[in-house]
């Protein structure tokens, strides 16, 4: 196993969807030391899987860098990336993603055979890993004959086939009951003992206690209670920009604002014009998403800014 730390610096991923530019990752930085288990924590849609894809060399980020030991992952291309995935990375996919026509043993061995190992070596390694994950007796069963927890353990064993220094696990406890989830958590815990780095994406808080480090994909302070206050903007001022973290909900006391969607080509699309007694910016803070549009003052405006909880209680429930 090649040991070296993982360093992610100022990572940005931007892609275009339906004509709009979306930035699931915007300037993310963190590091992982050998033997550490890092949990990427955040709600669905916050960019956890995108980050894992970047770490695994499946997705090329828009900017920023990823270094694993001596490997500059962000500058790798084609066959270099294939080799990187083959040698340095182990994947555990959400929903197990085992090949349904292959037995548990074959699911572990076939990827090894297809990446150049001899059948003998591959199947010996599969047997060893099945033993390690406690499924030695289930090796000849098809995935359809295994429980969710057993399938996930086979998926972990597959990820460990070539003994990678970095294991990436996407929602490994999703779809599992608490007993099966506990077994997977215990297994992941044990895998870092020999210096392996493990990066787990999850929104399952059960994984937090075993983490050596937690990367909050959504800033943890964004839902912090802030007092209700009035703010003023002059005509042409930006109240917030598309992609900004969402923290407050605004009610217009006076003046008008435009709600604008910024397009991938740099152009803008006017979504709405709002006036006094209308509110905006509520969905982002409620759902934990970044702002999905920009809002600009078209005249001098006075706004009342609420925290999501206060807005829900004082404005929504009042109506």
């Amino acid at each position, binding site marked *: 196993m090649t040991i070296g730390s993982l360093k992610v610096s100022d990572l940005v991923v931007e892609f275009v969807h339906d004509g709009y530019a979306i930035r699931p990752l915007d300037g993310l930085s963190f590091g992982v030391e050998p033997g550490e288990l890092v949990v990427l924590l955040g709600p669905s849609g916050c960019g956890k*899987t995108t980050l*894992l*894809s970047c770490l*695994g060399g*499946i*997705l090329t980020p828009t900017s920023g860098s990823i270094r694993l030991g001596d490997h500059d992952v962000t500058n790798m291309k084609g066959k270099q990336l*294939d*080799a*990187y*995935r*083959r*040698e340095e990375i182990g*994947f555990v*996919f*959400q*929903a197990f*993603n085992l*090949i*349904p*026509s*292959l037995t548990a043993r*074959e699911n572990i061995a*076939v*990827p090894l*055979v*297809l*990446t150049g190992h001899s059948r003998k070596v591959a199947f010996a390694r599969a047997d060893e890993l099945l033993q390690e994950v406690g499924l030695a007796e289930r090796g000849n069963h098809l995935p359809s004959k295994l429980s969710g927890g057993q399938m996930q353990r086979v998926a972990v064993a*597959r990820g460990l*086939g070539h003994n990678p220094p970095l294991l990436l696990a*996407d*929602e490994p406890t*999703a*779809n599992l009951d608490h007993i099966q989830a506990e077994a997977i958590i215990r297994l992941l815990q044990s895998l870092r003992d020999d210096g392996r780095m493990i990066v787990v994406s999850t929104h399952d808080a059960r994984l937090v206690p075993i983490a050596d480090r937690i990367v909050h994909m959504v800033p943890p302070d964004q839902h912090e209670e802030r007092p209700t206050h009035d703010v003023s903007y002059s005509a042409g001022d930006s109240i917030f920009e598309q992609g900004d973290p969402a923290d407050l909900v605004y009610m217009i006391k006076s003046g008008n604002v435009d709600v604008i969607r910024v397009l991938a080509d740099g152009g803008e699309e006017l979504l709405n014009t709002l006036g006094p007694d209308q509110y905006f910016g509520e969905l982002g803070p409620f759902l934990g998403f970044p702002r999905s549009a920009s809002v600009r003052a078209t005249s001098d405006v006075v706004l009342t800014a609420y925290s999501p909880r206060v807005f829900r209680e004082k404005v929504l429930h009042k109506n």
Partner: protein
Amino acid sequence: MLLLTFRDLVYRKTRFMVVTILGAVVFALLFVMTGLVNQFNLEPADTVDQFGADEWVLPEGVSAPFTSVSVMPVAAVDDVDAETKSPVVITRSSLSDGGAPEEVVLVGFEPGGLGAPQVVEGRAPEGPGEVAADVTADVEVGDEVAVGGEPFTVVGLTENTTVLAGIPLTYLTLPDAQMLAFTTTQVISSVLVAGDLGPLPPGLASLTPDDVVDQTLQPLEGAIASVDLVRALLWIVAAIIVGAVVYLSALDRQRDFAVLKAVGTSNASLLGSLALQAVLIALGAVALAAVIQIFLAPQFPLPVTVPNSAFWQLPLLAVIMALAAGAIGMRKVLRSDPSEAFAGAA
């Protein structure tokens, strides 16, 4: 790669069996169509060969003995300068063994001369009232039959003596044929020559056996072209069947391919697996078709002779076709994105 391919074939066995059977039916029809065209081509060659002639002398302007009416005076035999020569009568007539009359080609010959039948059962006609017929005429030695309305006795049977897609030849002595065809013994249809042929007098021309074969095939050209067209259509149907199943397989396995790509498997390995699957389906279908055609061919009203070459050409073409038809599915593999492996449960 082999393991992945075989396991998938087993996992989706019902689909692959259905496709293999469908493909086998199509390939069996291809075998039969190939046999039919082959028989069309073999038939006149076999028949003409049994006449034993090196040259066929006919009146000038007559295209061939089996496809046009040929009449020449019997005295013309003396004008033909050849060591071995025999007059023959060749004409269309009918044969009936009590049921509906069947169309036949009468061949009048001189016993012991060129054009005499090579019987496989019984003997050749030697005198008046005797005939030998091709086995496809469905008569037996000893049967009393009517030829051109006149009574005859079947004394022998011949094989591979048909023309124009299955019309059987019926042999009788020259005088009997002359009387049936022309009601006189003073005319014949052709003079068969073995060995060297000297210059012919004006009004006579000669054809080689190959010329006779070519001319006899001419009326069947339309039929052969039609069968060839059907064969081309059957290849297209086979390609659609194999292509569709390979595409469906690629579609079903898209997530599997994404996972394998994500763990570093090369496109070549995955393409190889899918290509091997296409080839195995095609070869399985051809193997089954080779058995089906044994039972299918006799059901055809026309003789079918599948050439030996078809048993290696057809599988070879099927493999090429399967790879071409599977290309769309393989394209799917090339395009499958390893990041799809991260997608949630389908």
